[in-house]
Every structure is written in structure tokens, then in C-alpha cells.
């Protein structure tokens, strides 16, 4: 941002002959549009409900940006949400103000080095920050009061004073030199594996069902892992065949689709759980079938022609792991993530390393 929009708004309000009226109107009518992205929204609800009642100061909680003049950004802004935030801000008529509440909005808070987070103050100009995780309703109300004072007097004043301390002395480091905190102890298993073993259970219908399935798919390894839970291990070339047979058996919907990353063995495990809504005996039964695919060439046929509801789950797995489901028409489009983020759930994805530099 090149222009200082905040200063422009204040300047507009405090110029001209009728400046007192303009300032009075803006001061007592800070209608808030709130952008709830995380838990701080609960605190905003408190602030406007009985008990705290921010409407006493003329601030009315409103749902739309065209007719209001204050945005309250509540918490984490992801890279996809950043676009919505910017659009909201640009659609609001001038003079407009922004209050940001929560630690996540300031430096990311809990999610500071997440693959998909951004800093709201890099996207829109912000008048007041309310730190806290989450901040109290009193904090939010005092920010609204501070904004009113800012509109009236024209200068921004902080409402809290913090004690100052000499970080260089405390940390024992020099100014301008980058320093990294010690790494947490990592325990690396030599050969991690997911053990899925048959279990002896008393389940008459299950035994019958497994026998039936075994007759139909002689190429697969089928066993019960618990009551009402059946596991099928097979090779990737039989993936579609298994799905087709299960669908004809009466399993009519997909519960979940998982991909497990095993970088040591250079493979992905694709796990699909199906169940039934239409056949009464199969309703409590969940059948999981898994195949292994090579990690450097992760391609597998899509099951969208058997179960259309698998569409979103395949797109999600494609976003997170880069697995290409052949036959799904939406492959290659980003579904959940911002365009610049690639395969964040692969185990070799590089996150931002913690480090700090003292500046003076």
C-alpha cells in the first residue's frame, strides 16, 4: 500500500467547515461488519450481547459491508480468505476503519508457520490491534472507544503500555545477527509402517460377508479388523475392480478417502472407506480397501463413476498430496488451497524455520 488510507480517512473527517458534524456522525455510528474466521468471533458475540453491549456506544453489528464503516477482523486469515478480506474492504465506502482482534491476526499466533496463513496487516490497513488469544470483550470495546477517540482527536493513541526490556541482554545475542532456537528433539523411526492385522471377533454376519467377498475377489487379502469393520488389501491394478464389486454388493457411498505418505518406502497408500445407506444389514458395516502407488508417479484411476460423492475427497487429496486421480474432471484445479501452495501435507514439505533477528 502506497497511500496511507487511514490518515486520508481521518483527514477527510477533520477538514472543512462542518468537520465537527462529520466527526460526530462517524464517531457515534461505527457499524461493524465482522469477518469471523476463528474463535474470536465468540468474543465479538459477547461484546455485542447482553452483559457487555457495545451498542451503547452506537456500534451496531451488521452483516454487510456496503452500508457500514468498520470491519472487525477476527483471527486467522488464510491465503484464500485474504482475497475475501480485501474484497470486503474495497467494497466498503470511505471513510472506513478496521479493528483486528486476536493473536493470529498479528503474527499468526498458534499457526505462525503454517503453510497457508497470511498476515492481515499486509492486506489491508488496520487502525487498532487487540492482542489476546482470544481477547476479552472488554478489549474489543476498548478498541472501539480508542477508535472513537482517534476520530475525534485525529491521532492514534495506544491504550496499553507494556514494560520494556533489553532483549540483547536477556537473550545474550548481538544486534542484527540471525539466531535460531534449539531444535526440538526428533525421534525418527528407521522404518515406519502401519500395521493392519486380522483380529478374531465373534461376528457371524461378518464371517459370511468375508467369505462372499473372498469368492468374488480372489486377488485380494480380506479380513476383519473389528466388529463391523472389514479391510481389503490389494494391488493398485485391482483398485477399480474392487470398487466395482463393492458397489454391486450394495455399498452405495464413500465415508472417506485417505492418502498416507510413506517417504522411506517411496510410496503412497490410498485408503478408501465405503458403507451403505440402502441395504439394512450393511448399514453398520464399513469396508476399507487400500492400494499402494509409487510416490514419484502418483496416478490412480478415479472412482467418480461408481460413487459421485468421492469427487470432493479426491480433489482434496490432490491438493494435499499431489495424487492425480485419472478421470476426475476437476483434477489440476486448486480446490482448498491458494494457487501458490503445493502439496503441503507431504512429509518433505518445507515449513518456515523459527529464527529471530534483533533490530535496533
Amino acid at each position, binding site marked *: 500500500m502506497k497511500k496511507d488510507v487511514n490518515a486520508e480517512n481521518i483527514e477527510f473527517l477533520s477538514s472543512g467547515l462542518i468537520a465537527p458534524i462529520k466527526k460526530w456522525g462517524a464517531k457515534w455510528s461505527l457499524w461493524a461488519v465482522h469477518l469471523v474466521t476463528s474463535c474470536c468471533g465468540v468474543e465479538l458475540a459477547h461484546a455485542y450481547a447482553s452483559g457487555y453491549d457495545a451498542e451503547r456506544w452506537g456500534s*451496531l453489528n451488521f452483516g454487510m459491508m456496503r452500508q457500514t464503516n468498520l470491519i472487525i477482523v477476527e483471527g486467522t486469515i488464510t491465503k484464500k480468505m485474504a482475497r475475501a478480506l480485501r474484497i470486503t474492504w474495497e467494497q466498503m465506502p470511505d471513510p472506513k476503519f478496521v479493528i483486528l482482534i486476536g493473536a493470529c491476526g498479528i503474527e499468526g499466533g498458534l499457526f505462525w508457520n503454517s503453510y497457508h496463513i497470511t498476515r492481515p496487516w499486509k492486506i489491508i490497513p488496520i487502525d487498532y490491534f487487540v492482542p489476546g488469544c482470544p481477547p476479552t470483550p472488554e478489549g474489543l470495546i476498548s478498541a472501539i472507544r480508542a477508535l472513537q477517540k482517534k476520530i475525534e482527536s485525529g491521532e492514534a493513541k495506544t491504550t496499553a503500555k507494556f514494560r520494556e526490556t533489553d532483549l540483547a541482554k536477556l537473550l545474550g545475542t548481538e544486534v542484527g545477527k540471525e539466531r535460531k532456537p534449539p531444535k526440538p528433539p526428533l525421534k525418527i523411526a528407521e522404518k515406519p509402517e502401519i500395521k493392519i492385522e486380522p483380529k478374531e471377533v465373534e461376528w457371524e454376519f461378518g464371517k459370511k460377508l468375508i467369505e462372499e467377498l473372498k469368492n468374488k475377489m480372489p486377488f485380494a487379502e480380506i479380513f476383519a479388523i473389528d466388529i463391523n469393520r472389514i479391510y481389503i488389501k490389494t494391488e493398485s491394478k485391482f483398485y477399480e475392480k474392487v470398487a466395482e464389486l463393492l458397489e454391486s454388493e450394495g455399498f452405495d457411498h464413500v465415508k472417506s478417502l485417505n492418502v498416507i505418505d510413506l517417504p522411506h518406502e517411496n510410496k503412497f497408500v490410498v485408503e478408501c472407506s465405503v458403507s451403505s445407506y440402502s441395504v439394512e444389514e450393511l448399514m453398520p458395516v464399513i469396508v476399507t480397501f487400500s492400494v499402494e502407488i509409487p510416490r514419484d508417479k502418483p496416478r490412480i484411476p478415479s472412482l467418480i463413476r461408481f460413487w459421485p460423492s468421492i469427487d470432493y475427497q479426491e480433489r482434496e487429496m490432490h491438493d494435499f498430496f499431489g495424487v492425480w486421480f485419472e478421470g476426475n474432471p476437476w483434477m489440476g484445479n486448486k480446490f482448498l488451497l491458494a494457487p501458490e501452495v503445493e502439496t503441503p501435507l507431504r512429509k518433505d514439505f518445507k515449513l518456515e524455520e523459527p529464527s529471530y533477528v534483533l533490530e535496533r
Partner: protein
Amino acid sequence: MLSYLLEMFRQNSVGIPLITRKVVLYHTANKIAYIPPLTSLFAKIPILNLIVALIFWKPFFAVLFAPGLVCILIAILFIIWFERKVTARVQWRYGPLEVSRNVGGIIQPMADGMRYFFQEVIVHREAHKPYFLQFPLITFLPVLLPILVIPAGTIYAINTPYSILVAIALISLIPMIIVAIGWASNSKYAYVGSLREAMMYFSYEIVLMIAAMSMVIIYGSANAIEIVKEQSTIPGILLNPFAALAFFVAIAMATSRFPFEIPEADQEVVFGPFIEYTGIIFGVVMTLAYEKLYLLCMLFSILFLGGWNGPFIPPLGDLSPALWLFLKTIGLMMIFVFFRTFYARYRLDQALKIGWSKLMALAMVALITGLGLGAVNVMGWL
């Protein structure tokens, strides 16, 4: 020419003893000390006397002051504050307060109005620009024209035997303009909102008209002055309670009060037809529903509550009946906005179902009652 105009204005001027009579301070045996009347201050100045006479000319006074523009403004400012305050009190909150602590924040709508006045007006690229900016101003036509035919006691612009019919016909034009606003906004939520407005329009309008007609049949006249004269002993709400109930619910539907706040539902279609408006133009269109509420409440009090019947207050003169009508109207408006605090919102299909089945049946019962009582009235038994 000017003297002719002056004479015309003065012959038909509003008589308010408080400002047109002289105020006597004291009088002894042969001396009288008095303050001259305010209007006579300008009586000899050439142009000013014409302006003062014009202001107190009854048709002009009716449209501009009571029951016209100034009364609408006062009613809107009060009712918006009252709506927020009563909602807050029901929810165990204070509501608007700190802007003026000692009078309970009653100037809060003025602060909001000032803020709207100095906010940017955005005309988005897709809007049909001329219409988008014209329609909010055109809305004043169907809002102010009914004032010409709705009298407030002796203050009226046009005394016509068709006053109730003309007023309802003109008020029925307001939804047309809302639909036109939705079209001019050219946005999907505005489109959905104006579609809902059109649907609602069809479901309440017939009921509203039938309910009003049944009262007109009872009194044997559509002239508001005669209707109020007929009610000097029994108010219309006791004569035909079915018509009153049908008219009441139809008003709630027509002005999108809860539980029928469907076209503007801000949780669903974010203010519907008015979504794209900003700044002072939004201020104008937002008050549209309240203006319509004011007009319909005035009609309700004329048809059912005895209009301006009330104890005569001598110092106010012609303003006294206008004051009674205004108080009744404000009381009704307060009841309507109070619904916001405890009603949920109907779905569109539910509202349409009510409008076309139960409410229509109620209106039919009201019409039959009206026909019966009208026959009795014609025979002279009432």
C-alpha cells in the same frame, strides 16, 4: 397577481392560536400590553409575507408539516431509535445510550444519518446508472402524494370522496419502485430480493384492499373526513374486528416487519433490493419501509381507531386533530416495530400460503361482515 395569491393563501390557512393570536401580557384600565403574533411580524414585508402565508396555506402545510414531511421525519427518527432500544431492552441490554446519556440516546438515528450523509456513494460498474440513482428519489412521489388526500382533521389538501381509494392506490405503487430498484442494482441478491418483494406484493395487496373496502362499505363513503365522523361513537375496530385484523397483518406484510421481513432479510439476502446502495442514497431507501409503515398506520387509525377524534386542545387549534392522528399513528408503529423482538422470520412459501389461504379467508369474512353492517347502516339502524 401577488396580492391575489396572498389572499388565496390567507383564506385557506391553518389556524393555530398559539402563534397566530396575540399574546396578552397584562392589561390595565386603558392599556393593553401584548406580544404581536409571530405571523404578523412579516405581514407587511413584500416577499416574506407571501412565503409565510404559503407555509400556512392548508394544502402546503399538509404536505410539508402535518401529516406530511416533517411528521414523517420525526416519526422515522423516533421509531428507528425505539426499534433499537426496545430490542435491546428485551435482550437485557441498554441499546444506544452514550451518544446522549441523559435522554437515553434518542439522537442516535441522527448520528447514523450524519454518518450516511458523509459516506462515499458507490455506483458499481454493472448498475444501470441513471435508474440506480433516480429511483431512490422517485420513491418520494408515492410516499408524499397520498398525503394530499389523507386529511388530518381540518388540515387537508384535497377533499375528495375517493380519498381512501386514491391513498391505497398510490401506496400500492411503492413495491413497483422497490422492484425497479432491484432491477437497476443488477446484482444477484438484489434480484432475489426484488423477486421476493414481488411475491409478497401479490400475497398481501388483495387482502389489504378487501379489508379497506369492507370498512368503506360500512361507512358508505370513501371520504376520510366522513369516515372519521361516522366513528365518533363506535370506532371501526369494534364494528368489524375481522377487517382490522386482516388489515393489521397485511400492514406487517406490506412494510416487511417481522415475522414477514422476507424481501430484506439481512441474514439471507443482505438487505435484498437495497444491497448495492451506499451512503446517503441507502439512507433514503432504508427509510422507505418506515415511510410506508407511517402511511399505512395512518390509514389504519383513520379506518379503525377513529382517526383524529380526541379531546380538543384550544391553543393548538387546527393542529389538535393532527396531533391526535399523529399520536395514534406513532402508537401503532411502535406495536409493529416491537414484533422484531420476539418473532422469527417466515419462509417465503409460508408467508405466501398464509396470505393466500388464512388471511384471504379472514378478509372474505370481513367483507361479508362489512356488507351486512353496510346494509344495516343504509337502513339507518346504526
